[in-house]
């Protein structure tokens, strides 16, 4: 009886999911309510979790509840602590959730809401959540070792080194592109700049409070911090309106980029307790709180999606990023569908705290589904905007000009009706002078969020308040990523250089630290500056490079998982990781190849360089460059970007070849050949008293 009702329930839920998805996919020519999207995603995630993740857990990985986890074996009350699974879920989700799932889906909305939605739903169920879950499991079976170490032991030292170089490069691209998003959001916005600048003294105060005034009282100081932040958002409006104060917080994009570079350097050499840690606390709590608030707001407001299901830009001529749906959609939305970065988190602190191996399913697979929910919310927030407003905010000045009139004309030519009045009025509503060409996702999401929240609570705050709150919330955790990332990058540089010159590895050495930090900051700073000066808006160039890098890392993690499944002699189930691996390799390598070699200068770096090189030879200046020096700069940038894309391809192909070799040897072996930690049952650990 019980199984009968349960079957009926799951069947009904599946039918419901299919109906909702049908509405999302098939309605044309009329707007649909966001609830269809939310309901389709929610029910599909529940079904995917219940059936697919259970299949993987029971059949393919055979999670063993009787096997002692690293937390039980090495319990020290500090790093290794068996932790309640809901508590650990919060930790893991906070570690994987960042700006990525908020940005990618917004950029992908230029093709309409449908392609992005489908890739998030299919990608997370069959690739992203699988990668996170399997990596967490494999790390738990290997004393909570990191992805790099595991690749070294299972695939050999060469693969380990190549993967490490790959991780360093993706880190540099990640920081550059996130910093660019902050620059795009804050340039010529005194309100936003004031609010974000205010986070620095607030964080410093919190740092001193936590260290010296009332040590370790995180709860009370975070509460004080959040109140101060909200005051800063409110007060920022008056600063922006004041003719004396506003110019002090108004900067152009180039100055803003230099300030960020200087900030990144300073922040990563300051003691962690002073700035990084307190701001991390603020950003973590605000992130979780705001995502929760947005979820409730979408559910209650139930807004209509004004963006069509598909736009004409599926053909690859879109203004936000260039390239056709395949392969470029699949690298544009990385986080939210599948993110290689999560493999690093899943092999970091989480496996040290699993109380039971069977919890890996809930924490690994479940957290990633939650991240996909965030991505769906971001997509919804972008799709509730008038398409004309969306394109005005995301298309570069080279395509739409710099006035509301020119933008409205250009956008009307693309087939989206928008009046100059609507564009100026929207800017006025959110307390800004312009909304044009603020690419990068954050401002678009902020306008969408502001509309939803304001419609829900018309008396509380204003559009302008919510817009700047949303900008602050995104800038806050992007800045945390910038300095935490610079710090990790610094350790990686020290590790890599230290392999050749040992004294460089000493993390106490002031010289080694400064040199490594400089290398790291110069790396991302160079790409940031390139993006800021790029007449096509920067995001156009840098986001695909970041997407390729991130998906390449996911490819590497899935190669590792696939090879390890073969080494475990679970060949029957190898498709679980091999199919998403193959798909990611196809997408990344095709996208990488096109970015380098496409003959279309809008897509291929070399073709673009050629175009500018030819003109330079004739002494001509090609728009949007304005001088010979700019022409030479574009020419150089293109070639460096092409080189970088090629390095990404070489990295992933090398790991793949080494993986195939290892898999081939394992296939011919008669017994499992993995390097798992020895089997100890939970009872034995109880007896040993540890």
């Amino acid at each position, binding site marked *: 009886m019980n199984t009968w009702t349960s079957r009926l329930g799951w069947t009904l839920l599946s039918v419901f999911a299919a109906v909702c998805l049908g509405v999302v996919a098939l309605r044309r020519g009329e707007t649909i309510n966001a609830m269809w999207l939310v309901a389709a995603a929610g029910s599909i995630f529940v079904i995917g979790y219940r059936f697919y993740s259970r299949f993987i857990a029971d059949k393919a990985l055979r999670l063993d509840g009787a096997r002692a986890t690293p937390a039980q074996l090495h319990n020290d*009350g500090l790093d290794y602590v068996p932790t309640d699974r809901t*508590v650990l879920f*919060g*930790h893991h989700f*906070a570690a994987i959730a960042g*700006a990525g799932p908020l940005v990618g889906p917004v950029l992908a909305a230029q093709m309409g809401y449908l392609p992005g939605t489908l890739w998030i739903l299919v990608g997370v169920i069959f690739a992203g959540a699988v990668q996170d879950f399997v990596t967490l499991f494999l790390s738990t079976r290997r004393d909570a070792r990191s992805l790099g170490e595991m690749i070294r032991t299972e695939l050999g030292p060469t693969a380990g080194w190549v993967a490490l170089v790959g991780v360093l490069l993706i880190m540099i691209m990640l920081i550059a592109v996130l910093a660019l998003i902050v620059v795009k959001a804050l340039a010529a916005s005194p309100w936003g700049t004031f609010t974000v600048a205010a986070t620095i003294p607030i964080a410093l105060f919190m740092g001193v409070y936590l260290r010296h005034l009332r040590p*370790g009282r995180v709860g009370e100081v975070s509460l004080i911090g959040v109140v101060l932040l909200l005051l800063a958002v409110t007060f920022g409006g008056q600063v922006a309106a004041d003719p004396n104060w506003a110019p002090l917080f108004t900067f152009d994009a180039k100055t803003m980029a230099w300030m960020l570079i200087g900030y990144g350097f300073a922040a990563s050499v300051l003691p962690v307790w002073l700035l990084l840690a307190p701001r991390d606390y603020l950003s973590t709590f605000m992130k979780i709180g705001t995502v929760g608030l947005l979820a409730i707001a979408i559910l209650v407001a139930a807004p209509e999606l004004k963006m069509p299901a598909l736009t004409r830009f599926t053909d690859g001529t879109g203004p936000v990023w260039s390239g056709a749906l395949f392969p470029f959609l699949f690298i544009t939305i990385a986080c939210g569908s599948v993110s290689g970065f999560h493999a*690093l988190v899943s092999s970091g602190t989480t496996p040290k705290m699993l109380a039971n191996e069977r919890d890996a399913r809930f924490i690994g697979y479940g957290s990633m589904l939650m991240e996909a929910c965030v991505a769906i919310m971001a997509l919804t927030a972008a799709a509730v905007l008038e398409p004309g407003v969306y394109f005005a905010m995301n298309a570069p000045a080279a395509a739409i000009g710099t006035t509301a009139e020119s933008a409205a004309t250009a956008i009307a030519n693309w087939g989206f009706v928008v009046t100059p009045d609507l564009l100026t009025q929207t800017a006025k509503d959110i307390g800004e002078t312009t909304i044009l060409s603020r690419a990068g996702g954050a401002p678009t999401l902020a306008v969408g969020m502001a509309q939803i929240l304001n419609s829900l609570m018309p008396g509380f705050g204003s559009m302008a308040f919510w817009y700047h709150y949303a900008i602050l919330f995104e800038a806050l955790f992007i800045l945390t990523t910038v300095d935490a990332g610079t710090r990790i990058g610094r350790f990686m540089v020290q590790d890599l250089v230290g392999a050749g010159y040992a004294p460089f590895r000493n993390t106490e050495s002031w010289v080694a630290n400064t040199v490594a930090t400089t290398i790291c900051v110069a790396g991302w700073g160079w790409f940031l500056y390139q993006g800021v000066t790029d007449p096509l808006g920067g995001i156009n160039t840098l986001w695909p490079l970041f997407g390729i890098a991130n998906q390449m890392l996911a490819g590497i993690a899935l190669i590792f998982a696939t090879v390890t499944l073969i080494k475990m002699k679970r060949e029957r189930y190898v498709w679980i990781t091999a199919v998403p691996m193959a798909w990611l390799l196809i997408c990344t390598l095709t996208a990488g190849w096109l970015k380098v070699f496409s003959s279309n200068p809008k897509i291929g770096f070399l073709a673009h360089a050629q175009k500018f090189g030819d003109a330079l030879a004739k002494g001509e200046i090609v728009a949007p460059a304005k001088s010979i020096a700019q022409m030479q700069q574009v020419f150089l940038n293109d070639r460096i970007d092409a080189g970088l894309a090629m390095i990404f391809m070489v990295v992933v192909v090398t790991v793949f070849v080494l993986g195939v070799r290892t898999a081939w040897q394992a296939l011919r072996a008669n017994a499992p050949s993995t390097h798992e930690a020895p089997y100890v049952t939970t009872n034995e650990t109880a007896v040993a008293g540890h």
Partner: protein
Amino acid sequence: MSPQTKLPSQDTEAAAGWRARLHAAWRKAEQTANLAIGVPDYETYVRHQRTQHPDQPVMSYPVFFRSRQDARYGKGTSRCC
């Protein structure tokens, strides 16, 4: 006995049950918030130290907090995009 005429002791028992449940929920929320920023549960640490290593000193909360902060950021944390 009708439900209206509960004995006083039953009332306090029910209230105590509720209080315990609320307290447990609060503890869990507190632990989740702390772990989200990389600070493990202090009480768990103290219990572990007392039962497993009674011969070794137990860090005070401020010292414990500082050591966890350094551990989280010392080598850099992996965080996502």
